């Protein structure tokens, strides 16, 4: 398939020999894979298989947990992010995170989006206003909130909050968007809106989603990674992997024998 050829040629994120130990428990076992550029990659697998852990190693949020040891390399733009010389905040800036439950910061809608740019030194009022507007438009929230930008973010509905969080992530101009079960706390309508954003955004960003909903992976993903008990069982272009999985474990998972 020419599609698969294109994918393997331009990886955005390279993982090589990645091992994660959590208080002696071997949570991720020797994982090597390439995440394609400007595509949606879905990480699937039964709960507790290490999906979220893998995602958290990509932006080093895994550092905030006591007793975790990471071995191996995660390369982005040719730089190993676990290199001690690397600036963590710069790495994290390259990746927007959309967590499971929407998590607005305790401030106004405007300040939520402006939070990242301000931290990275943007002070101009007009610039900030432009950044906020364009990113809120980007996630389709501008129309809904433009006349109450300075109201607390906590007053938005859950679905709106999740899109606000997406806008907040985009405002620091990341290259990659990480989604950790980003729709699982939302109602079907909001869920659909967020999925539509993902499909639009993949033209500009590399998107990595963790999901336990197989159908969502089928709807969105160009590339699929299947994890089981901390091991990388199979990965490949979505169409191929869903149509004829090579490994029996993958087949069993896809047909619902293991879950």
């Amino acid at each position: 398939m020419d599609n698969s050829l294109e994918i393997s040629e331009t990886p955005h994120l390279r993982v090589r020999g990645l091992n994660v130990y959590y208080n002696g428990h071997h949570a991720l076992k020797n994982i090597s894979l390439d995440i394609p550029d400007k595509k949606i990659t879905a990480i699937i697998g039964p709960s507790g298989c290490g999906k979220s852990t893998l995602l958290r190693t990509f932006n080093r949020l895994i550092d905030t947990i006591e007793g975790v040891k990471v071995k191996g390399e995660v390369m982005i733009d040719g730089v190993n992010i676990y290199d001690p010389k690397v600036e963590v905040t710069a790495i994290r800036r390259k990746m927007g995170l959309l967590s499971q439950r929407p998590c607005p910061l305790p401030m106004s809608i405007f300040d939520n989006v402006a939070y990242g740019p301000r931290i990275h030194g943007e002070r101009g009022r007009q610039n900030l206003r432009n950044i906020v507007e364009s990113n809120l438009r980007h996630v389709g929230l501008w129309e809904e909130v433009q006349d109450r930008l300075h109201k607390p973010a906590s007053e938005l509905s859950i679905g709106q909050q999740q899109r606000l969080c997406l806008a907040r992530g985009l405002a620091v101009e990341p290259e990659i968007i990480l989604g950790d079960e980003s729709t699982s706390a939302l109602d079907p309508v909001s869920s659909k809106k967020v999925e539509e954003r993902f499909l639009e955004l993949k033209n500009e960003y590399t998107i990595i989603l963790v999901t336990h909903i197989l159908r969502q992976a089928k709807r969105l993903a160009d590339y699929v990674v299947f994890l089981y008990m901390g091991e990388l069982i199979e990965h490949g272009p979505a169409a191929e992997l869903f149509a004829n999985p090579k490994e029996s474990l993958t087949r069993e998972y896809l047909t619902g024998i293991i879950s």
Partner: protein
Amino acid sequence: MNWRKIEEEFFLVMMRLASLLILAAFLAIMGTVIYYGLPALSWEMIFSAPKGGFYLGKEGGVANAIVGTFYLACGATIVSLIIGLPVTLVLNVFLKRGSKLAEFIRFSFDVLWGVPSIVYGAFGFTLMLYMGMRASLLWGIITVALVVLPAMCRAIDEVMRMIPGELQDASLSVGANKCETAFKVFARQALPGIVTATLISFGRAAGDAAAVLFTTGFTDAVPTSLAEPAATLPLAIFFQLGTPFPEVQQRAYASALILTALILLVSIAARLTGSRLSKYVIK
């Protein structure tokens, strides 16, 4: 009526009696303070300092102690907030989740919380003598700040521990560092808790007597600088109740009423403000 019904009824009566007994004790204390304090209260009592010595002089009021208590409690609360807020932010943001050091420090605050104020007083006194200084408002503030620090930290920490980990993730993942996350996000999310903790600590500081006894001294004058000794309401009660003169004892009664009213007001304020300030708080 079978036996198990009788048993239940018996214990229910006992439980109600016990609860009523506690209520009665509370009312008795308030009643005593009001019964003796109210007749002793007057403008002169509130606005003038004792004349002719607090132990012997029959004229004047307790303005020295009111002002002293206010200075001391404000000072001690501010100092302990300046120490306590960074410490709780470190516990909840800087240290990793499940950190052993954080666990140890939380435990040590739990234990410190149980240390009686006289021990802090003796320690502060020792330190003060070691530095060759004398009892003053400054030393009172330092010592009482230590007394209220554990309560302050525990109260703020309790609120910060409730903050979900995702909030920290959200801030870090746009490239904020830990400092920015701590002060811009955590401190803001915990604001209602911080205000409540501050008010609780203020109440404790205002009511403390044992630590103040060693380090703050007592004087008839209204304090004008940190280096002077200062009078406080609890000690005004303690010293003036023991005199043989009824006129002086009046000052103790009035002090008790003022102090109790102050502390109850602060405690009610703590309950109310907690809910008022939660506008930006994410639930």
